[in-house]
């Protein structure tokens, strides 16, 4: 059996299956839903940072754009949720296309420009002058589409598709090409890789994942403020989770979400500043001692991480 299908059977099926069964065993469905959302975001960051090496500090821009794309369709055009979901994803991809020139920047310049872009979108969406269109700073309240079970199911479907995409990247020429670009774009170009096209594709996939996650998040929670869906903690959590587990692997970001988001939910809700302290320290220790995440530790012990 090729590695691709082995990975699909060994990771995608159990993870999606477990997340599908858990609501029957555990009462806090919102928490489970948030786990799914962060798995999506961490894998989205994985696609663009892990494989391509661009650190998207403003990744939440796509999430928020997806949430608003979804909500505006529902509010203004009374679109059915599934169709609005497509619109949310498309809005994020559109923003991604708009931001493709940023990929010309390297390293820190890209991260900072991306962060600025996300904050610029937030400023536009929450501007009181646009209250007729986006409800400005007062937030969105969606009526008549609240179907948490269906929304959760759709989120799981998106998760399955996302994980399959990452499994594909992990086991395909395309994924190898992206990693080659990450290591050295010029050599990759010399080896016959169309650097510009491949990284734009990875960027748009990553934007699509966050956009869909944002849409389904808007659907599930129904009431939110611009600061909720553009909150920088989404980008930061997603990056830290992906980094903690190990970028450019399928399993790493999932482990990151399960371990760190698990810790967050046991101590972070009641005393957020202590959690902030712990994950701040954790990030520093990771960068200094384990820059390639848990996966590199496992590899050092001779375990192959898919």
């Amino acid at each position: 059996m090729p590695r691709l299908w082995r990975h699909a059977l060994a990771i995608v099926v159990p993870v999606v299956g477990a997340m599908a069964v858990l609501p029957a065993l555990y009462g806090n469905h919102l928490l489970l839903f948030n786990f799914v959302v962060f798995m999506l975001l961490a894998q989205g960051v994985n696609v663009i940072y892990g494989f391509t090496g661009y650190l998207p500090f403003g990744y939440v821009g796509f999430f928020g754009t997806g949430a608003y794309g979804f909500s505006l369709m529902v509010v203004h055009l009374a679109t059915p949720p599934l169709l609005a979901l497509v619109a949310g994803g498309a809005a994020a991809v559109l923003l991604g296309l708009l931001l493709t020139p940023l990929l010309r920047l390297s390293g820190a310049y890209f991260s900072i420009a991306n962060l600025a872009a996300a904050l610029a979108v937030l400023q536009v969406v929450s501007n009181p002058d646009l209250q007729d269109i986006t409800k400005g700073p007062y937030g969105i309240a969606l009526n008549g589409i609240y179907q948490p079970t269906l929304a959760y199911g759709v989120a799981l479907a998106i998760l399955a598709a996302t994980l399959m995409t990452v499994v594909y990247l992990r086991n395909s020429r395309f994924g190898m090409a992206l990693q080659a670009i990450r290591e050295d774009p010029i050599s990759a170009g010399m080896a016959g890789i169309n650097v510009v096209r491949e990284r734009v594709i990875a960027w748009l996939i990553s934007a699509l994942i966050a956009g869909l996650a944002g849409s389904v998040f808007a659907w599930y929670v129904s009431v939110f403020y611009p600061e909720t869906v553009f909150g920088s903690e989404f980008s930061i959590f997603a990056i830290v989770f992906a980094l903690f587990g190990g970028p450019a692997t399928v399993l790493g970001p999932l482990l990151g979400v399960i371990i760190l988001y698990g810790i967050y939910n046991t101590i972070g809700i009641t005393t957020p500043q202590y959690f902030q302290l712990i994950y701040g320290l954790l990030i520093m220790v990771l960068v200094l001692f384990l820059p390639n995440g848990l996966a590199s530790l496992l590899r050092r012990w001779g375990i192959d991480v898919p």
Partner: protein
Amino acid sequence: MLIYSLLAGLLFGLYFTLIGLGLNLVFGVMRIVNLAHGDFLMLGGFLAFWLFNLFAVNPLPAIPIALFLFMMAGLPLYYLLVPRLLAARDPEMLSIILFFGFSQVIEALTTIAFGTSERSIPGIELGRPVAAVESWFAGRKVAPGPVTLFGQTFPAAWIVSAIVSALAVFLIFLYLYRTRLGYLTRAVMVQREEALSSGINVHRVSAIAFGVGIALAAISGLFAPFMLGSITPAMGVDVTIVSFAVIVIGSLGNPLGTVLGGVLYGISYMLMQSYFSSWANLLPYLLLIAILLVRPSGLLGRQVRRA
């Protein structure tokens, strides 16, 4: 209104220069991105607040205290974090994440120590020295209050902050261009490896630059209660973005560019405030993206774009 905006922009621009200068110095010398810059500024703000409230120390005499304290904190911090970081494969990228983590630690510790409430210092405190100078010139007692400049009235605190910023920029230029240490620092800026091979103690030079960088952030923080509004532990991130906008406009790694960037940023911010106030907050982000795309090396910079 136009003259007011231009003058206020100039005053704020000088202050923004001071905010960006430390960040730029650190980037120029070490090629690392100090994402915790805004948090050092925040700590400076808290220093000013506590010195004022506990010992009634005016922010002006607090400057040498801040310089000393943060230099002393910066040197060990450099040796703790930076050499290890520079040995990694992609220091610039990892530095973003590392200092992001560090900024979270600072913010969390400050929140644990002081809580999340907003603190401020009455603006009149910086008016007193101005009034003293005015009284001396006029030969009679002048009450502290707003200052009139070219027919426009500004809070005295703005004038004082701008003057302090201009002085600090001037001193940094003396340090970089008129002392032996500055000469060595510029050598490290241009080519780290060659500086090392020609016998410069690169780590010592860098550590001092790092200390000066965060001390500059803290000094600008002393005036934050007057220029940026009240101080909270969470203000760091926004300040970091503004300082990035300032130094990217000027150009990363070039201290001279920071002055240009700060003044341009200050004036355009004030013009936006006067004419499209609800969109003014959008400015730093758009300016940052536009400059990065059109001229990523900044207005006075070298080539940085790849592929």
